[in-house]
């Protein structure tokens, strides 16, 4: 049953972040900022070869350096769990997780091979510079192009990731028969997440074998179970508290190696230890994989799709089969009877790639939506018209209905706002001064999911509410929306509500990812508040001569510290009086939100977008400017237009980076990423970003989640790169299928 919300004052209205002040004044503490009187500091030493064996580690000079307490290597590390499955975390892909300092084997360049622990950070860093590691290097391969022939379909599917559907019809046959054909091969570069906050863990040694762990992650419970499983500790002995996360983007979904190293050192030294990764070490773990795709579309002269073939090969490590959804989008977005989608992996001597904002979707749609644009030109059908022609009202991959799909409205509203009808479709037809102007568009889709999540609400007689859930706010605004939901449930001011997150002692939540947190934690908070409301209402009715006697819960409202009859607000009981009548001074409830099994069987949920981009290209010099973006998004109910807009804008900016700038450069001779700093790894700066307009299209959907929310963290990035590539084609007549589209490619 969908919950019955109270009147909405805050929900649906723009509200500033409740944690904004703490963040800009330094009051918000991040994992590397917690401290303890006995704190020691760890600094990591990383491997310089990509594959081979460590033949020796000389730690004498480091151990002799002032302040150095210990150097941990595979030779002297304490015993940890033997079975590799013990290292598997909640979101691990199939395989054998990387185990830091496990043995003498080097499986990727940058792998941690030693931890130097010292009295100060500087002493540890100095000590680390004195550690001498020798290797017996072996031949490695980090180049996806040379492993293409050995690509394979992962034998074991990653849980939570839909594998490509079985082929429908006869795609190759229908392609051969199609009067209009387009086909192309597309590259997407390696990208590293680079949140502003580097990965860091502070382990506070509490005595009696108890650890208080502050770890940068997107799920404290995942970190806790990893630590307890790997080190054989009781969950009661490991509390993970991460109230703030300085950006995650997926890099904090899985425990990263600094967590292991800090806990190991703390247990061994029996004191508090902090390990912070440097910016260059942020390039020694998770990243968005390098992907090659081919797309073939066959169509009738009027643009009706007859065949879709979309294949991808993604790099993964030697030890895990990382999987993300790259190709399915094409089959979900369009109606077509002959569809063949495959996804393969190729093993490389690298660390395992991982989820990065909308994993797989911007990559897959870059290829698919570039191909659709090409088809628009091949058939002479307007790109929006083409998409409408092939529009589907149900998810043909899954054979299910969409819980809702306002993509048609997104095209319409977005096109109107952008002024799409003014577009001369002819490439190179629009110009101002030396610059060619290009207008391009693309569709976006991202899964709208809800996950089992619990929350607690505590209302006290003074009219203050606390809501709590173990989930993380990775910068998306979770604190704020949960506060809004809590405040509205009781008609309180935002200031009267405190939201607590990121602590393993709080009610259960899965990792914060997949854009499911607002729907899941939001529903859980709503349910917990409702349970408290019911209790409060019962007490209110018990008050002697209660003006609410005989009233029904759905006929009263909670506002201004009272419970009042909606139709006759003069009949009310205050929160304080209700509590007094019940003989309590606080009311508490914990509730669990579960996705509806029936709805999940019948419907698939997606967030959609239509994104429109204007670029200006100085063709002679290869310089591209993104001068205008309009993104129309259908994401169900928008809890907070202000934080929601920030999410989408952030995603679009990243999409600009993905399309034009972002790329980790591997040296295949060394098997190593080379531009591992933010001077040479380019993300957009203010000068790269001009007008961005976000429009939320109305969409009503209570099947996707009881509170009607679909989630917004990822949709912004999804279609952006494709729309930019299409705009560049429109401007220049050049179809560039290799991201990022840097100066050399525009010239080439």
């Amino acid at each position, binding site marked *: 049953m969908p919950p019955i919300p109270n009147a909405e004052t805050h929900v649906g209205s723009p509200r500033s972040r409740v944690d904004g002040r703490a963040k800009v004044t330094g009051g918000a503490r991040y994992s590397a900022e917690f401290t303890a009187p006995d704190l020691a500091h760890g600094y990591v030493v*990383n*491997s*310089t070869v990509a594959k081979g064996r460590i033949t020796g580690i000389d730690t004498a000079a480091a151990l002799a350096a002032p302040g150095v307490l210990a150097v941990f290597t595979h030779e002297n590390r304490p015993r940890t769990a033997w079975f590799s499955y013990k290292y598997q975390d909640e979101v691990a892909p199939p395989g054998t997780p990387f185990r830091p300092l496990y043995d003498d084997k080097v499986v990727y*360049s940058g792998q941690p091979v030693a931890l130097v622990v010292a009295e100060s950070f*500087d002493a540890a*860093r*100095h000590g680390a*510079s004195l550690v001498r590691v020798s290797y017996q290097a072996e031949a490695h391969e980090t180049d996806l192009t040379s492993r293409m022939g050995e690509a394979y379909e992962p034998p074991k599917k990653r849980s939570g990731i839909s594998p490509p559907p079985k082929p429908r019809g006869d795609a190759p046959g229908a392609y051969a028969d199609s009067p209009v054909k387009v086909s192309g091969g597309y590259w997407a570069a390696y990208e590293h997440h680079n949140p502003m906050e580097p990965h860091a863990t502070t382990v506070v040694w509490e005595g009696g074998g108890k650890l208080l762990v502050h770890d940068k992650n997107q799920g404290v419970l995942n970190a806790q179970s990893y630590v307890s499983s790997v080190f054989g500790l009781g969950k009661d002995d490991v509390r993970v508290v991460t109230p703030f996360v300085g950006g995650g983007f997926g890099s904090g979904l899985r425990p990263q190696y600094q967590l292991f190293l800090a806990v190991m050192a703390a247990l061994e030294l029996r004191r508090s230890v902090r390990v912070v990764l*440097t910016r*260059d070490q942020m390039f020694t773990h998770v990243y968005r994989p390098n992907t090659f795709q081919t797309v073939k579309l066959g169509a009738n002269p009027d643009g009706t799709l007859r065949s879709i073939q979309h294949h991808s090969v993604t790099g993964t490590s030697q030890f895990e089969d990382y999987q993300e959804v790259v190709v399915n989008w094409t089959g979900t977005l369009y109606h077509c009877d002959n569809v063949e989608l495959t996804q393969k992996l190729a093993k490389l001597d690298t660390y395992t790639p991982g989820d990065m904002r909308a994993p797989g979707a911007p990559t897959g749609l870059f290829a698919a939506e570039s191909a659709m644009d090409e088809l628009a030109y091949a058939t002479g059908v307007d790109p929006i018209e083409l998409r409408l022609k092939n529009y589907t009202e149900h998810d043909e991959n899954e054979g299910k209905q969409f819980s809702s799909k306002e993509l048609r409205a997104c095209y319409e509203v977005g096109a109107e706002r952008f002024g799409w009808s003014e577009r001369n479709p002819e490439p190179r037809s629009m110009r101002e*001064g*030396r*610059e060619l102007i290009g207008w391009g568009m693309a569709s976006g889709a991202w899964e709208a999911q809800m996950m089992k999540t619990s929350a607690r609400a505590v209302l006290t007689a003074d009219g203050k509410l606390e809501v709590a859930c173990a989930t993380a706010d990775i910068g998306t605004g979770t604190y704020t929306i949960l506060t809004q939901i809590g405040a509205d449930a009781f008609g309180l001011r935002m200031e009267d509500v405190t939201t607590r997150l990121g602590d393993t002692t709080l009610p259960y939540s899965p990792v914060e990812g997949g854009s499911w947190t607002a729907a899941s934690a939001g529903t859980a908070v709503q349910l917990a508040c409702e349970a408290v409301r019911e209790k409060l209402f019962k007490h209110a009715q018990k008050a002697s001569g209660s003006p609410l006697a005989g009233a029904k819960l759905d006929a009263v409202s909670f506002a201004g510290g009272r419970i009042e009859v909606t139709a006759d607000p003069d009949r009310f009981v205050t929160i304080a009086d209700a509590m007094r009548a019940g003989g309590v001074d606080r009311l508490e409830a914990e509730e669990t939100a579960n996705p509806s099994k029936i709805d999940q069987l019948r419907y698939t949920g997606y967030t959609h977008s239509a994104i429109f981009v204007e670029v*200006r290209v*100085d063709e*002679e*010099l*290869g*310089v591209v*400017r993104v001068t205008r973006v309009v993104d129309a998004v259908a994401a169900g109910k928008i809890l907070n237009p202000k934080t929601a807009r920030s999410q989408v804008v952030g995603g679009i900016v990243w999409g600009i980076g993905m399309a*034009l*700038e972002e790329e980790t*450069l*591997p*040296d295949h*001779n*060394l098997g*190593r990423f*080379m*531009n*591992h*700093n933010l*001077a*040479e790894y*380019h993300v*957009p*700066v*203010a*000068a*790269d970003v001009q007008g961005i307009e976000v429009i939320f299209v109305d969409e009503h959907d209570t099947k996707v989640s009881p509170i009607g929310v679909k989630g917004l963290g990822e949709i912004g990035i999804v279609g952006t790169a494709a729309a930019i590539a299409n705009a560049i084609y429109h401007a220049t007549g050049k179809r560039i299928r290799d991201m990022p589209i*840097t*100066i*050399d490619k525009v*010239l*080439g």
Partner: protein
Amino acid sequence: MNRFSYLRAGDVAEAAREAAADPAARVIAGGTNLIDLMKYDVERPSRLIDITRLPGLRAIEETADGGLSIGALASNTEVARHPEVERRYPLLSSTILAGATPQLRNAASTGGNLLQRTRCYYFYDPGTPCNKREPGTGCPAIGGVNRIHAVLGASEHCIATHPSDMCVALAALEAVVRVSGADGERGIPFADFHRLPGDAPERDTNLRQGEIVTAVELPPNSFGQHHTYLKLRDRHSYAFALVSVAAGIEMDGDRIGRVRFALGGVAHKPWRDPEAEALLQGRPASAEGFAAAAEHVLRGAIGHKHNAFKIELARRAIVRALGQAAAGTPQSQTDKRIQ
């Protein structure tokens, strides 16, 4: 990072003496480059000689011949925003403002900008070989990742570039670097200050052991509005140049009088080619003429796997920049549209 001792020098003589006495000592000014390199373990100085309190090195003042002298400790921002620089050497202002960020420019010094080291990825990563960092270990950029590397004047030992923007203007303006060392003071023409890598890529400049840069002197010039700094890079701000061109022209009616131009991002030093400049002298300002000059500059260019595009890009950038300078429409450093 290694352990080092620290000395706050009292005067230039002391700083030069101490620097000369210990080849592993390093002078520190703004620290925006040196400290980074120390954190990466690329620079491992035995001693830091802090020159930031040295008296008299911050001044920007007239010289006897009508030029301008810029003290080595003047910050990049102070130089770029100095009224005399803005009025008489807008090209210098423009190049400085095209570089880094306001925060970095506030901290960075003039001397440090000259002596900043290459941004070659390998140079920055002690986990890899690099002839510049550790002579004799090889140059993995050749045959490796070399998108940002040199196409002119490189050697089989090193293909690194000098990353400065400001220095590209100083080359075009024919500045003189004033230095002070154990053997006294001397002036080094800008073209001779930085070196090509040859077989000693560990040496970026022709400074002698222990010499301190005290000032940069600009000769008087009359480019007026006929100048430009065109910087092409991987994003619109806060990125080093892939290719840049600083140009100044003394127009003689619609003919070119004296012309100076230099390239950044393409060589181990700001690249000037007096022969190419001579080709333009006395000619009408025309795209064909500029193209011929560009052709001449790039005649010996050698591309590698990822940077070969720089040759064509440089050719086009020279033509565009000379066009901007001739027209008296210098490239704006805030409006990213290229004229």
